[in-house]
């Protein structure tokens, strides 16, 4: 057993994930080892079907690995009950999804506030936190709009606000720029960089978009369920994706 250092947010040891059973088993992950430390801003790339979403789901406690150890914040989450896993997600993880996935009956403000409400934080504190966050994120004045009244980029900003409102240890973002134009993508990434710098929030992204790479402090390439070339610099990757 390895000793856990306090700034180790994620530690994966030989993670395997099989889908299906019988003859049609897909080996989505084939023994991934990964360590993320506090303040990381990591981008994960790789072709379609390489296992990026699967890995993010396992790290976020949305899915369980077939084998291997998943240690989040010093805690082996493989042994947690579903309820404990819910609480782990509530208190440690922020999610941003490709399709925004805002709650349609809640306003921008209420969506951003939702996790804080689940945490049982009192309304005054919630208001203070969410209002300043929406301002920081560039959504002030839009807080009473419902998701359907916002553009894709604005919705994704609300989703980011929702993910970071409770100051989680780790924010997981699965292809969050896939549905917006490149300009919007750029501004979303700048937003997250600033959140990373100001609040020391740890980010893990998956993306197909090479433009994302220039924001990364670290890049991981996932291929056929394994991490390869972990040591590549961003420049090299950019070159390789343009070939």
């Amino acid at each position, binding site marked *: 057993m390895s000793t856990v250092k306090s700034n180790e947010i994620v530690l994966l040891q030989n993670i395997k994930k099989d889908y299906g059973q019988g003859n049609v088993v897909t080996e989505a992950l084939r023994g991934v080892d990964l360590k993320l430390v506090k303040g990381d801003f990591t981008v994960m790339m790789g072709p379609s079907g390489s296992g990026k979403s699967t890995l993010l*789901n396992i790290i*976020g406690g*949305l*899915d369980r690995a077939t084998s291997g150890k998943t240690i989040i914040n010093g805690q082996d989450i493989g042994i947690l009950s*579903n*309820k404990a896993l*819910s*609480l782990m*997600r*509530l*208190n440690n*993880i*922020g*999610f941003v*999804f490709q399709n925004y*996935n805002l*709650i*349609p*009956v*809640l306003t921008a403000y209420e969506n951003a506030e*939702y*996790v804080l*409400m*689940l*945490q049982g934080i009192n309304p005054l504190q919630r208001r203070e936190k969410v209002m300043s966050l929406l301002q920081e994120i560039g959504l002030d004045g839009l807080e009473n709009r419902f998701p359907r009244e916002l553009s894709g980029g604005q919705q994704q900003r609300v989703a980011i606000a*929702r*993910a970071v409102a409770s100051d989680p240890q780790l924010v997981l973002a699965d292809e969050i720029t896939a549905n917006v134009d490149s300009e919007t993508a750029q501004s979303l990434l700048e937003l997250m960089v600033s959140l990373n710098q100001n609040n020391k929030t740890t980010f893990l992204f998956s993306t197909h978009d090479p433009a994302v790479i220039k924001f990364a402090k670290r890049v991981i390439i996932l291929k056929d369920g394994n991490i390869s070339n972990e040591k590549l610099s961003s420049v090299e990757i950019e070159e390789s994706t343009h070939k």
Partner: protein
Amino acid sequence: MKMVKISWRNLWRNATRTNITITAVALCVAILIIFQALIIGLIEKAVSNTTNLLVGEVQIHANGYLDDRSIYKSLGNIEKVRAFARENNIGIVERSYGFGLISSGKKSAGTQFWGINPEFELNYFDFANNIDEGEFLSETSLNKVVLGKKLARSLAAEIGTELVVFVQGADGSLGNDLFYVSGILKNIADDIDRGAAMILKDDFDILFSTNNIVHEIALNSKGKFEAEEIQKNISSKLKDASVMTWKQLMPFIDSMVDQMSAFMLTMFSLIFTVAASLGVMNTLLMSTYDRMKEFGVIRAIGATPWRIIRQVSMEAILLTTLASIIGVIIGLGISLYLQVYGIDFSGKGNLSFGGVVFDPIWKASVSFKIVLLPVVLMFVTSIVASLYPASIAARIKPVEAIHYKP
């Protein structure tokens, strides 16, 4: 509360669906309220028909009289009861009973003689109106007798027939006299039909050598007071007499009324509310399937299954609350109308069952109870019905739901 707000907004995402369900549940509540008001109205009418016939709401006897009906167990202190009845405008009759033999020459039979005051009986009770042949007694009907129907038949007596009467007087002497049949009653109740011979109170005293003797006082406020209320009042005035309500005198009728109303109302209400709650369940099921992805997302960001169950059930509660308010307004409105005006059956001829004539206007009876039962049942069944969709929503696996395409 936040949860209420979220559930409220979710309810109106598909307004047509919600409105249809609310209408159905509201109608169900309204129908149950009206139905109960009418049934309780009918039962109350049946009970008052029974008490008005001859029993009254409360009866007073000397202690132990009902056990052996001895002529010596008579009531004293009657003046107090008379005063109480007068003050409160409660109908009161005094009756005396004695046993004897009655003979028409051809045939004879054992008989219970009733010494009555016809004016009071006609004023406060109905049986005197149920005359089959001839006429009831009046104040001047000395040496006239009114017979129960079966008694008259077994004596082969007709109107005007001369009857010889033998009794044992209270002083031990033999009383005998001649009476003439003035009227024959319709079938009323078995003991009356077979054995009652009604004569004037004055005739009774002469026949039995008694002096203004009273064995029974029957009080009838015709619903103005509760029987128990009258009983309590008189018991406190007359310590040494037995004061009983009609429920104690006829426990069989009381329990039949109770069981019938409990059974009918509960069964009927249950069937209706279960049907309506299936509508609620269907609505929530459809809206749960529409929102699979959303539930997955809120599970992903940390909501517990329990929270999701509460949220879906809250939607059922809000829907039922709204529907109940509408249902109660409609149901109570119509019931109150029916309490005042009733449903008129008089155009369809005389309503009579087993010789008892019913009031042709069927009136509802409104009470708090008729609102409580449907509303409470509706809430309970709706919440139970919401648990199935709620548990589906709560069991959603976040990963699958996020990729779920409806």
